């Protein structure tokens, strides 16, 4: 056990820091910010991901033959920390990098890996995840969207919902039914679908935050070449479990942790500026306790991730234990977002654009956005079922 960084890791950190300082616009995070318009912001983020790729900072822990850097997960973690320190923009191709790519590494064939992985890293191709359906959310295995073999293709018909970033995506990982006559888990297959295919319609859905990140996605006689099947026919459920283990796992959580910590640091700074009458918010002992509770919660989120990294470096594969990560972080992050609304006084209620807003409305926005944490990637109830049944071995 050693929390110190090796000289090589330090050098890596210095390199990242120097590069970020040169690559970000002047005054970044102080006078220069991301575009306020959601669509402009999405494109700004895609541009940023391309810049990262050109700088050689995409896919730090990926094999070099797929365009990665071949470094360790530890270096990947350092990179994420430095991005947060510099308040660098988030990427938009998270589904490509964390879900599509990791799944292809485990279950794809070599031709698929060579075709898709480099373009994911380069942010040339953005990905979305077509798993959930109107009638198959928590009960994902009951998905009804169908793929029927026809010559060299499968023909897909059905509807997906809550498809994040579909409007920016070139590709989709799709879970579809290929056998109706077997138990529900046994008749699903995993496909890679070109979003430019004829027959795909995307309809935006507005979220409680007012944003339009997710969509309804309709498939009408969409032809998907057979080479776009991942793994074996009807083995899609098992493959999707790998996808979900990464979606809930430590790499995803660490990147989030860093963003949450940034937000908490900002909150602590604001609690020193904002007066609640005669004294600063930070001087209220009850508020101090609440801030400290979130500090502890979030730092331990990082520790949970680092422990998982060490297991992964030892060769342990991600499994149902990743639900321990996801259930934990989603709740402590929600707690923090709730708490942030309760410690800075009345001005907290003012959103971006209002002259009296605090921190450009970040806290009320996060408060709204944080509701999603315990819903996506599997709701908390589903994570608890998984932990109870598959980690603790309680009867089904």
């Amino acid at each position, binding site marked *: *056990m050693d929390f110190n*960084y090796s000289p090589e890791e330090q050098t890596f950190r210095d390199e990242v820091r120097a590069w970020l300082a040169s690559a970000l616009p002047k005054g970044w995070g102080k006078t220069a910010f991301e575009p306020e318009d959601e669509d402009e912001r999405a494109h700004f983020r895609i541009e940023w991901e391309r810049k990262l790729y050109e700088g050689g900072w995409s896919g730090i822990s990926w094999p070099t033959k797929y365009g990665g850097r071949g470094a360790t997960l530890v270096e990947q973690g350092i990179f994420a920390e430095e991005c947060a320190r510099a308040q660098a923009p988030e990427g938009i191709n998270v589904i490509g990098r964390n879900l599509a790519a990791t799944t292809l590494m485990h279950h794809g064939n070599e031709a698929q890996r060579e075709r898709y992985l480099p373009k994911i890293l380069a942010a040339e191709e953005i990905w979305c995840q077509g798993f959930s359906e109107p009638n198959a959310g928590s009960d994902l295995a009951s998905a009804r969207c169908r793929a029927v073999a026809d010559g060299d293709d499968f023909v897909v018909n059905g509807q997906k919902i809550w498809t994040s970033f579909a409007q920016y995506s070139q590709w989709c990982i799709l879970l579809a039914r290929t056998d109706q006559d077997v138990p529900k888990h046994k008749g699903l297959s995993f496909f890679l679908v070109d979003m430019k295919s004829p027959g795909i319609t995307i309809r935006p859905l507005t979220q409680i935050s007012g944003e339009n990140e997710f969509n309804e996605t309709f498939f009408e006689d969409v032809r998907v070449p057979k080479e776009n099947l991942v793994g074996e026919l009807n083995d899609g459920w098992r493959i999707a479990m790998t996808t979900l283990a990464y979606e809930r796992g430590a790499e995803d959580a660490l990147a989030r942790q860093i963003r949450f910590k940034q937000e908490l640091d900002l909150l602590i700074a604001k609690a020193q500026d904002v007066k609640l009458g005669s004294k600063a918010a930070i001087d209220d002992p009850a508020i101090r306790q609440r801030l*400290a509770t979130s*500090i*502890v919660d979030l730092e331990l989120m990082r520790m949970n991730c680092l422990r998982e990294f060490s297991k992964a470096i030892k060769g342990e594969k991600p499994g149902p234990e990743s639900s321990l990560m996801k259930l934990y972080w989603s709740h402590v992050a929600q707690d923090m977002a709730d708490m942030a609304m309760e410690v800075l006084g009345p001005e907290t209620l003012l959103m971006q654009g209002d002259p009296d807003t605090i921190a450009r409305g970040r806290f009320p926005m996060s408060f709204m956005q944080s509701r999603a944490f315990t819903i996506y990637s599997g709701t908390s109830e589903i994570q608890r079922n998984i*932990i*109870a*049944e598959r980690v*603790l071995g*309680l009867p089904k």
Partner: protein
Amino acid sequence: MNFDFNEEQYMFRDTVRDSLKAEFPVDLFRDGGDPVAMEAALWGQLAELGLFGLMVPEEQGGLGLGMVDFALIAEEFGAALVPLSVTDTICASLVLAKFAASVQAENLAKLAAGELRVAFAVYEKNGGYDPADFAATIGGDGLLNGRKLLVAGADRADLLVIVARDAAGTLALYALEGARAGISASRETALDITGDYHSVSFDKVSVSDADRIGGAEAVDFTLDLLAAVAALGLAGIGSRMLDTAVAYVKERSQFGQPIGKFQAIKHRCADMAVDVNTARSGAYYAAWAIASAEEAERLWAVSMAKAKANRMAVHVVREAVQLHGGMGYTWEMALHFHYRRARHLEVLYGSTEYHNERVLQGTMAQLAAG
């Protein structure tokens, strides 16, 4: 960067776990065993396993290992309710070796052999948690006066390690033989009945420079060490209570099915598992910080670990009792021994609020430094 233990550390943990399961089951407490006699029998076994010498330097016959090597053992000690007189003695080896290795060489050699018992005399009535508020003081005449509470196994300690203010008003750490004139221990009636606790009076006890282990730095280190070991012990208790509850709900049937099939029960177990996992992360990090971090990081890490372990233990042990129904409330089921120890560790080495405040101050200092 590596946040894992090595093979030897896991193997040693397994050896200690097996030995405690066989020789020190909680049934002994349930069946009316006298904790003092039980501790005496356990002492020899732990000495045979080489546990007392774990952190004693090799020159004094120890293994010369550190806090990270002790971490998993401390967790097992928590799970098995090993009396705090044992953990105090092992913790003392680290303090004596770090701050007074040459003066204490002889004591360290005895400690490594399992022939020296040490007790920490830290907390006081109306003293709270901050040592700055403790009253025990050595006057200009070189005489120590004060009274300490909840000192484990104090009546038979060969050495008492005490936090007191010196004549110049500085907080310091002293090691005094338990038999020194003016020291008297009186057994307390405590919530935790898995060990014996004493109030210890220091009445005009003559103290010399040779007794001094170190100044404020040694005091801070010692309190951090004790809090980190308490956090590890709480992680062990949480983990044992989770296992016990999970085993029970798989077995107990109501409404024609194992109660562990009810989702309300599953979900509570899942939340316990998340909490135990996270408290472990914190406690392990604190163990590393005791061994290797600078003071500021050590303090911060330890306080995070203890604050989380406190919250976890209160939650997990309460749930474990609840999931056992009426059985959980019986003496016979023996959950209450862990319940008592959990509260003892939670309250004694810094409350959640005390540690929270230290965490916030540490974070603000980090942010101010940029």
